[in-house]
């Protein structure tokens, strides 16, 4: 029998004082190469607080989280855990022992192992019997309101499901401070609500929660205090009540409100463009419209897009009156049907390669003088794309890994806009984990594309993403998928439609 060894003074939550921060970072300074990511940043969290951390991509949120969890060693600064100074050694295991846990945007799980292995791996439970570990895992998942079978391989899970497993893993052992980096990025409304009530419960038990998100609505719904970072410095730090939505929106992307961008277009005479039947659902799409396919996290709408792209079971489709059949992505791409996966790190990027290569990989044959690549023309296209999509953070030959999440996503989407003209663009959660500025850039580019007659299908489990990007939506749930036309209270109706 193994003992769960915790530092005793951290164990009893009653003994601690409410005014001693669970975690406190002072004058933290981090720079990469010549670029400063954090500049004398101070951050602390009291027991029972849920602190929202907001900021643009590249504002230093992730860097701050990485310092707190020991993944990154700052050049300068001090760190205190419950009033005691601790060494900043840049070793995540130290922080793990103090109960400082992190949930990353991209779940760090072993794809080739089962869910219960992943949840109990590397912990004292590892030595337990298989049944015991399955039991623990099931309980951890139940805490999150999930009933996933614990025997499934993690590799077979959808992105949202993986995130739930990752959360369950963090919550299965002692937690003091839980840092969540874009936790709801891939979650549907029901899972998000579950997560939020769970976080509130943890806060009531005097845990500290740091919540990093681009979704203002989530932040406002759950956080007790909000810290806004900009260029590596804390620019605002106030209780949530002292903020208004507009104010926060403005702090993040001055002058641009996401809502402003959505405009109802005159729906012209509908020209039949794509007729498709898949798993008993019949759907029609017109030329140049942006249609949302709304459903649960890991819902059928994602598989539908994959099917159209030649992955998974085939669709019975007609594109512009002609039989459309794609056995693999190559076929689809040849016919002008392009797809962006929700998991851009796994499916969309070659991290070793430069930004321009990542942008233009499918079109290399069109950038030659017969045999040799014409780098100048490639660079010109990249600059065009960078201008149109407002891609920042690097030049043509900068490795894609040096760009922030939002800019990477713009490159992944730009790949299909700045190559051969698309006919049908399939996007899976295209603005997931992307800040407001990047969201508006992407929305604007898609709007322009639709105006040129390209039909765009957006599969999502987020009502606000659908509302931001789309003109009409289909609720992909149940026997018959239901049309849900755009109205004033669209988001609410979409959610209702899904839950009924």
């Amino acid at each position: 029998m193994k003992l769960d060894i915790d530092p005793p003074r951290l164990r009893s939550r009653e003994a601690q004082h409410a005014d001693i921060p669970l975690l406190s970072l002072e004058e933290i300074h981090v720079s990469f190469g010549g670029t400063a990511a954090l500049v004398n940043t101070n951050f602390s969290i009291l027991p029972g607080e849920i602190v929202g951390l907001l900021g643009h991509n590249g504002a230093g949120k992730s860097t701050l989280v990485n310092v707190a969890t020991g993944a990154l060693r700052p050049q300068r600064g001090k760190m205190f855990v419950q009033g005691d100074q601790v060494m900043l050694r840049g070793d995540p295991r130290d922080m793990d022992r103090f109960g400082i846990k992190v949930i990353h945007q991209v779940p760090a799980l072993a794809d080739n192992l089962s869910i219960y292995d992943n949840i109990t791996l590397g912990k004292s439970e590892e030595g337990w019997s298989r049944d015991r570990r399955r039991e623990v895992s099931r309980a951890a998942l139940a805490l999150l309101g999930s009933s996933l079978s614990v025997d499934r391989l993690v590799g077979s899970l959808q992105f949202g499901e993986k995130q739930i497993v990752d959360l369950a893993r963090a919550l299965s052992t002692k937690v003091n401070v839980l840092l969540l980096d874009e936790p709801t990025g891939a979650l549907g409304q029901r899972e998000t609500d579950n997560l939020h009530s769970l976080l509130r419960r943890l806060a009531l038990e005097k845990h500290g929660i740091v919540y990093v998100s681009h979704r203002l609505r989530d932040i406002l719904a759950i956080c007790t205090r909000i810290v806004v970072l900009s260029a590596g410095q804390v620019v605002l730090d106030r209780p949530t009540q002292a903020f208004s939505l507009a104010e926060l929106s403005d702090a993040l992307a001055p002058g641009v409100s996401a809502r402003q961008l959505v405009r109802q277009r005159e729906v012209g005479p509908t020209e039949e463009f794509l007729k498709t039947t898949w798993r008993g659902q019949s759907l029609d799409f017109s030329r140049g419209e942006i249609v949302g396919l709304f459903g649960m996290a890991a819902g059928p709408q994602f598989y539908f897009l994959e099917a159209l792209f030649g992955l998974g079971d085939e669709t019975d489709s007609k594109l512009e009156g002609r039989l459309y059949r794609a056995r693999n992505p190559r076929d689809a791409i040849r016919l002008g049907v392009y797809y962006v996966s929700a998991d851009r790190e796994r499916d969309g990027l070659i991290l070793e390669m430069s930004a321009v290569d990542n942008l233009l990989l499918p079109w290399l044959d069109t950038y030659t003088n017969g045999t040799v690549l014409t780098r100048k023309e490639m660079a010109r296209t990249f600059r065009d794309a960078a201008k149109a999509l407002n891609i920042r953070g690097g030049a043509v030959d900068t490795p894609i890994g040096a760009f922030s999440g939002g800019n990477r996503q713009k490159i992944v989407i730009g790949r299909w806009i700045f190559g051969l003209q698309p006919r049908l663009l399939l996007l899976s959660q295209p603005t997931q984990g992307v800040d407001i500025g990047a969201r508006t850039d992407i929305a604007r580019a898609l709007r322009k594309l639709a105006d040129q007659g390209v039909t765009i299908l957006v599969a999502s489990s987020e009502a606000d993403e659908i509302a931001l990007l789309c003109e009409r939506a289909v609720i992909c749930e149940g026997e018959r998928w239901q049309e849900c036309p755009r109205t004033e209270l669209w988001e609410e109706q979409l959610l209702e439609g899904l839950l009924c």
Partner: protein
Amino acid sequence: MSPDGTLGRAASGRLTLLGKKGQTLKKLSQHVQYLIARNGTLLGLILLIIMFSVANENFFSWQNAKNIGQAVSELGVVSIPLALLVISGAVDLSIGSIASLSGIVAATVMVETDSTVLGVTAGLGVGAVAGAINGYLVSYVNLNSIVVTLGALSIWGGMALYITGGQTVAGLPESFTELANIEIFGVSIEILVLAAAVLYGAVLLSKLPYGRRLYAVGGNQRAAFLMGISVQRVRFLMFVQVGLAAALVGLMLASKLAAATPITGQGLEINALTVVLLGGVAFTGGMGRIAGVAAGLFFVGVLRNGLVVTDTSQFLQQVFVGAILIAAVALDDKIRQFVQQRTNLRTSLDQPAE
């Protein structure tokens, strides 16, 4: 802002200028560090040359340089395509056996028909077919490349021994053995072939769409597939090229020795893989440059030659090469981190802040 920069501004205009100058110098030295980190093997090579030159005055000469070039030419001709294959995320361990078998088949055909052209064609044909079989099994049947080519190493090696009964095939036509003696402007054909191989690799990797696809397939196979790149064909073609290069080496050796033995190519695959990894190509695929591989090749060549010239035991060279390989790969991770940091720097240098 660097400390000296801030100080400069606080004091006076002239000091500010000095501060800026200091910063420029600092950035320059960071550039140099970046170059060193990216070209670790090249630096090691230069150090090695200096060492041997000091140890023996005969080492640093034109003649010795030619010796080294000739000695590594066969190894280089297979190392370049092997590097491309490793970049694409696969490996070929059957190179040595393909070289042996190609040499044997070519020699046998030449002895029987007395036709150099027929022999050379047969030899290269064996290489292409052997490479195509490897490529088919790895790319289209989806078997692991280490397993497949380890099997092929045994099969083709055994076949070479079986065909000849373990004997050397001699009595090759003069028109074939003369090929090894060709010189153009005083440069031997082997060195020219090596130069062509290096040029081929460099152009392919950096200038052709196919080279970009090799990186893409090796870096993230799934993403490459979703971008419509034919992952299977990219790797298949690379296996065929490696097979052809191995066959060419078998022919070069047969021509040079005026005979073919069934064990000519033994150990070639391991030496080539050593060169590739020493050259900074990631074994996991997706990363590597031909300049690095060339540096790795000459590193091995200079080390061997230098140890002979300085009268050190030849057996020690194997010990050295092995130790240096492990050290190089161990350092690789550190270097990569360093390069990543410097890349950020380079970005900021490329794009002057507004």
